[in-house]
């Protein structure tokens, strides 16, 4: 009976709707001499926060440019909710936050948003209300709303950048380095905004080198290198997978048989000991094994000073050039 229910639920489970379908995208510059995208294909689902990572010159910005309709691919296709990029109805549902917000310096934040509100063809009656709400949402202090943009700090500009992106309640967001230049509070604010948008079903693509942010925000991440997608990682799912934990102890206070104690603790906790020195050890382990490992080490008299993940999964992915283990 239970298997029948499971089979039925599998049969009726709705397929996630694709928001963006990129197929065999090829883009080159300088009459084909610089090849930026080499047959890139990608599906991004509605409501997903999707990260793009990769080394400089990998083709991430070119892909963003193609998605925005600012660049024309040599071949291949892009569909955004069934429409081509750059098409006016597509632009109505798209919000874009450029990496460097060098906006018109003579304007105030309110004027800037008013300008973009008008460009978006939004209802004039809701303008003031919508602009105030957005400025508050990105926590831009109200005492600078009427100040010239040229006097803004990088953090203020970035908040304004996020606010203009959200104008018109877009269904698709394209963000280039959204937390670059922000103070920790600003980073938290942007994160909150994006997490809030996730609940409303907005799809977002984040192009960033800030791997920890990508890891915190994104559902999936694509590693792009040499104009191609090397791998796509499901980050939430991956959280259950293995990572490296580096444990350090006080060398002076460690007993002579610390090496044996560490090896025994690793065995008892069921984790793999990767590297061992006189004052530290690296273990490969699953998230849930960390507690058991530390307990075993302490019980064997290892005077632990710190235990830190050696690097994030995305850093590891980056180091491996986007190849899965």
């Amino acid at each position, binding site marked *: 009976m239970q298997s029948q229910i499971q089979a039925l639920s599998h049969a009726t489970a709705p397929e996630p709707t694709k928001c963006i379908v990129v197929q065999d995208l090829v883009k080159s510059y300088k009459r084909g001499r610089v090849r930026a995208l080499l047959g890139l294909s990608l599906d991004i689902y509605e409501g997903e926060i999707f990260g793009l990572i990769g080394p400089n010159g990998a083709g991430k910005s070119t892909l963003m440019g193609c998605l925005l309709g600012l660049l024309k691919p040599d071949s291949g296709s892009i569909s955004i909710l069934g429409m081509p990029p750059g098409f006016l109805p597509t632009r*109505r549902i798209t919000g874009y936050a450029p990496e460097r917000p*060098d906006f*018109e310096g003579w304007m105030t934040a309110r004027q800037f948003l008013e300008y973009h509100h008008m*460009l*978006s063809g939004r209802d004039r009656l809701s303008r003031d209300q919508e602009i105030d709400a957005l400025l508050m949402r990105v926590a831009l202090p109200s005492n600078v709303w009427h100040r010239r943009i040229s006097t803004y700090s990088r953090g203020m500009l970035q908040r304004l950048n996020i606010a203009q992106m959200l104008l018109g309640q877009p269904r698709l967001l394209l963000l280039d380095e959204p937390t670059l230049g922000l103070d920790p509070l600003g980073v938290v604010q942007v994160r909150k905004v994006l997490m809030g948008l996730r609940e409303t079903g907005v799809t977002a693509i984040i192009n960033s080198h800030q791997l920890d942010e990508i890891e915190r925000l994104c559902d999936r991440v694509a590693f792009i290198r040499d104009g191609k997608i090397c791998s796509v990682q499901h980050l939430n799912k991956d959280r259950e997978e293995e990572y490296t934990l580096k444990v350090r102890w006080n060398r002076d206070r460690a007993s002579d048989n610390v090496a044996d104690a560490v090896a025994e603790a690793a065995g008892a906790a069921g984790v793999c000991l990767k590297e061992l020195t006189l004052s530290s050890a690296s273990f490969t382990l699953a998230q849930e094994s960390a507690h058991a490992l530390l307990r075993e080490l302490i019980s064997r008299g290892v005077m632990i000073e710190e235990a830190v993940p050696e690097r994030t999964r995305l850093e590891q992915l980056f180091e491996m050039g986007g190849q899965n283990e």
Partner: protein
Amino acid sequence: MNNGILKFTLLSACLDKIKLSYIILLGFVVPIGMKLVTYMHGAEESQTFEMLTGKVGVAFILTGLCLGLAGGGSGSQTGKGSEYLPLILTRPITRAEYIITKWATFTLVGGVLAAVQNLIVALIGVAFGEVLSPYVVAGLMLERFLDAAIISAALTLALVAQHWLFQVFAIGAFYVWMMAQTMPPVSVAGPSGVGVDAVALEGTHLMLTLSRLVGELILPTISVYDAANAPNFPYLAIVSYVSTIVIYLVAAIAVINRREFFYGTSG
């Protein structure tokens, strides 16, 4: 036409300190000062004054207004506080709408400023006893609007078409046109010389003729007073003027439609 672009281009002309200072200085302070000096100290009206109150003055005002449209180049994100085109073009407006609205706004602002300047200069003249009929003054003011329309169409094209060959051609053509506008008639007047003088004189004649031809080709303008007093309706001049504006605008739209905006790192 897009109201947002219209409103904020107008505001940019009024609130951007650099643009404002440039326009006030070249458009008003210098020519009005020159006119006052002419009457108060008996100095003759200079060629510079003629320039600044005519087509060249309109070109100077429009160049100031257009500063900023050049921002947001396709090669890099070098907005530096000016208009950042890639972001604007991700909004639901057509690129044709952008070009037409910019052109119309530049024409409106440039035309109004130049017409007001001509009016002030004429009023100063009248105050010092110059005899000017309202008909002539109205003709001058309309002429400045017509100048503004064609010069802003040419500038709009020059600002969006960033191919280096076109830029070289545009700058060259602008200087040749300026030469035609600024070369004083006295340069080629007087009796013919001999030897080196004759060569120099003929060279100047040739340069002037050529620059006038180029000027008429790239920026054909209509003299309202002459057109109104001509025995026949000046169809040819009007067709030439209108078709040139249309060519510039269509070319600007075609260029911006083809243009790509890459904002990432180069290479």
